[in-house]
């Protein structure tokens, strides 16, 4: 499947989050327009706003006394608010590009994600700035740098809940998924579109009790990912990857939460990027340990889970090539 098509699927998977975020940005933009409208309104502004029909009929000064201005900005506060307005407009103009991160080959995945989230964070910084200006608490020396990018680490809980999610297109060789663990919080949704060979169980180390984790192959569906109301991470991987979905709402124990699990017929035994076959085997073993129903002591491996476990061990032969 072409990369653009997979990115389209990924974008669709985070659509509810994107829409919620854009709605909030639009509302803030409207709020800023509302705040700026009337800022510094002069008698001339009032005269004009009433239109020429009012000329000679309406006492403009008197009329102006009844136009509400209780939340208008002071002239001093208007410039930073205008900066916030520009920042938000810039974000809105990026449209879908804002939510798609194309990681250059060889780049550090975690650092790139951090940078893009800082750009998205400008929306929250702008809202923060507007709030300060409205309350008359904006201080140039303290707050001038607010719009220089608000890193995820600085996002409040409410802001994290409003995260639009991110689609990350990355080479399999650079797909060090563990690097994004710090960003999986409060409803964040990340979808990786992995190019080329990739570790077969790359996301296994992200499986934690509260996070929806899914690996899908080319024709896999991300509907459950989209429907999950909480933190979630998914990867669209090549067909030789493990396919699984870990849904925190599906059960109390870890293995109950694995709603799907399908291992490929054959798993490569070679390094991908900096991940050695041994490390990949560890990922698979971890997945198995998490997903497979434990076999009580003394029981043979005749039950399905035991057979699966044995097959896994066979597949992850550590003697293979380096």
């Amino acid at each position: 499947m072409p990369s653009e098509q997979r990115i389209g699927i990924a974008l669709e998977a985070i659509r509810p989050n994107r829409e919620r975020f854009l709605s909030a940005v639009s509302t803030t933009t409207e709020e800023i327009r509302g705040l700026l409208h009337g800022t510094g309104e002069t008698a001339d502004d009032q005269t004009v706003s009433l239109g020429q029909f009012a000329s000679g009929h309406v006492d403009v000064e008197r009329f102006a006394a009844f136009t509400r201005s209780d939340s208008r900005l002071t002239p001093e506060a208007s410039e930073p608010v205008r900066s916030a307005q520009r920042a938000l407009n810039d974000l809105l103009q990026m449209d879908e590009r804002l939510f798609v991160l194309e990681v250059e080959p060889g780049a550090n995945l975690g650092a790139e994600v951090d940078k893009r989230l800082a750009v998205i964070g400008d929306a929250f910084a702008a809202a923060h700035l507007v709030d300060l200006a409205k309350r008359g608490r904006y201080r140039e020396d303290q707050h001038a740098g607010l719009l220089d990018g608000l890193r995820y680490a600085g996002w409040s809980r409410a802001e994290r809940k409003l995260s639009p999610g991110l689609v990350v297109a990355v080479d399999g060789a650079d797909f060090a998924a563990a690097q994004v663990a710090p960003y999986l919080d409060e409803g964040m949704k990340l979808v990786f579109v992995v190019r080329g060979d990739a570790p077969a169980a790359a996301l296994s180390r992200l499986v934690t009790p509260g996070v929806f984790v899914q690996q899908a192959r080319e024709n896999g569906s991300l509907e459950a990912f989209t429907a999950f109301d909480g933190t979630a991470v998914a990867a669209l991987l090549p067909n030789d990857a493990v396919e699984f979905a870990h849904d925190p709402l599906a059960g109390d124990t870890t293995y109950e939460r694995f709603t799907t699990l399908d291992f490929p017929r054959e798993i490569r035994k070679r390094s991908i990027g900096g991940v050695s076959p041994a490390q990949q085997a560890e990922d698979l073993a971890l997945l198995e340990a998490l997903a497979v129903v434990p076999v009580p002591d003394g029981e043979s491996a005749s039950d399905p889970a035991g057979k699966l476990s044995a097959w896994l061990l066979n597949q992850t032969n550590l003697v293979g090539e380096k």
Partner: protein
Amino acid sequence: MGTKATGQVNVEEVPEHTVEIITNSGEGAQKCAQIFGATCAKMGNGVWTVEIIPAEIEPPHHTVTSTSGNIIRFGTGKITNWGDQSKLAVAFNDQVLLSRHRLDSLRDDCIILLEAAWKDSEDEELRRMYDEAMEEMSSKNYRFVMVPYEEEALKIVDNPNHGKNMFALGLLAEIYQRDLSIIEKQIAHIFRFKPAKVTEKNIELVKAGIAWAKENLDFRFHIESVPFEEERIVMNGNQAAALGAIASGVELCAMYPITPATSVSHELAEIIENYGGIVHQSEDEIAAAGVAIGASYAGKVALTVTSGPGMALKTEFLALAIMIEVPLVVLNVQRGGPSTGLPTKVEQSDLLSSIYGQPGDAPRVVMAPRTIEECFHAMVTARKIAETFRMVVIVLTDANLATGVGQFTRPELDVRWQQGAIDQSPIPEGLRPYEWDLETGLSKRIIPGMPGGQHTVTGLAHDEESLVSYHPSSNELGIKMRSRKLAVFQSTLMPPEIHGDDEGDLLVVGWGSTQGAIVDAVGRAREQGHKVSTCQLAFLSPLEPGLKKIFSRFNKVMTVEINYSDTPGDPYVTEDSRRYGQLAWLLRAHTLVDVECWTSCPGQPLRPRDIYNNIIAQLESTEKGVAA
């Protein structure tokens, strides 16, 4: 045929002229007149046009009821009304001409360019009708010029009904020395959506008309054109209102088609989407009001457009808008009534229903543009008032303004005419949805989605929390607060401007579209030494302040209106039973002054001469009264 015998052409210098183009419905009089009027305006003449439109879409041809046409008054100076009578008429048959004669629309010395074919028609009945019509019109000194419109048009087009009008336009172009290049551009504009050959044929017809006039007509009129220093635009009142609505930032116009208001939405539909708005044609008038109210409630700038019968249907929904204090602009293009009445004709009979036509106490602002230009600018002011006071504002125009074409200075658009984005900051804790300022009745406008602003909207009596409340004091407070806003708005109004002296024998008071004709009539009376002044009200609810004081400086006050009033002396009409004109009622109640009225509802605009005659009659009756 024609009148030019010796080759001598008489050119008469005149300050203005009034031309009628009258045809059967469907013979293109409107297009001919539109192009002629626009050409005059673009050449720098003042222009005012009035449409003559039958209410029926396809009335029987060649009858007095089939008359369709246009009256174009144009001159060197500013023209504000359609004048008294026409001085030249283009008539495609004797019967449509007869209808205008019977309405006394033609001057005694009117030049009539009449289709030549009917006199010798093969149809005996048509010949008989022609002879009888000419006999009836022989009481006047009209100058008839027989013109072979159909015969000449057939030389160029197969269907003369699609060509006679342009041939007639050629005659007028030659008689009034109009700029052919402007005419050609106007034709190209009007037929811009048709194949190029349509434009070419029409221009050929105009040139044929010019050639025929050069060959056959011995008279010309020269009306000096003074190009305007500023840029001007030419349009009718409905177009002006539509553009004004866009300029004021209207985002949604909800409507249901109704004559003569529909063309407002046609104009809007063509361009409003370019400015971020939409026109919504609802399933009926009631739904249109509901959609507009919903949009406004959601924070959008909303407008609904209608005419008399539509206003009646919208009544209940307008009451809801008033009750929940949603800003709303309503454009009512008045027509003759009651019921379906006179759909294409002018009347000013919706004044009282616009102000009071609502069960319960439902205060609203009512304002009336007086010129085509004001139709544009009134929309801007209406929006601002509606939003500032969270009120329904009704803009009353009429068919005279709606279909009359004039030119005015091109407005310099200003973004400050539009609503700024609503501040959607969280609602301060404790602020109630109807936290009325007890002095002004004003309260913060809350739109859906504002944090902390969640509340139930209800048309039932409600308290400050917007909760249904039948408590006596709660209902009293709500009514008082909604009414207070009207008083507050009135406190921002200034006394009306008086044309003429500030005191005298008679003050003529009008409202809306009659301004031009009244000012003309009062001007004539003043030229003859009469102490008459006039003022034209633009705000009817609330009324402009200071009226009682102004009236006290005149011996008599008289309204002039296009609506019904009893004529004193008519059977059964007594002091007790007499019904006054609608503005007169209003002014009498408001000022306790014995305001007189002269009203007429002929379905057409008032003539300055008729107003003048009634001014003189009023002055004479006042003098007699004083003498007695």
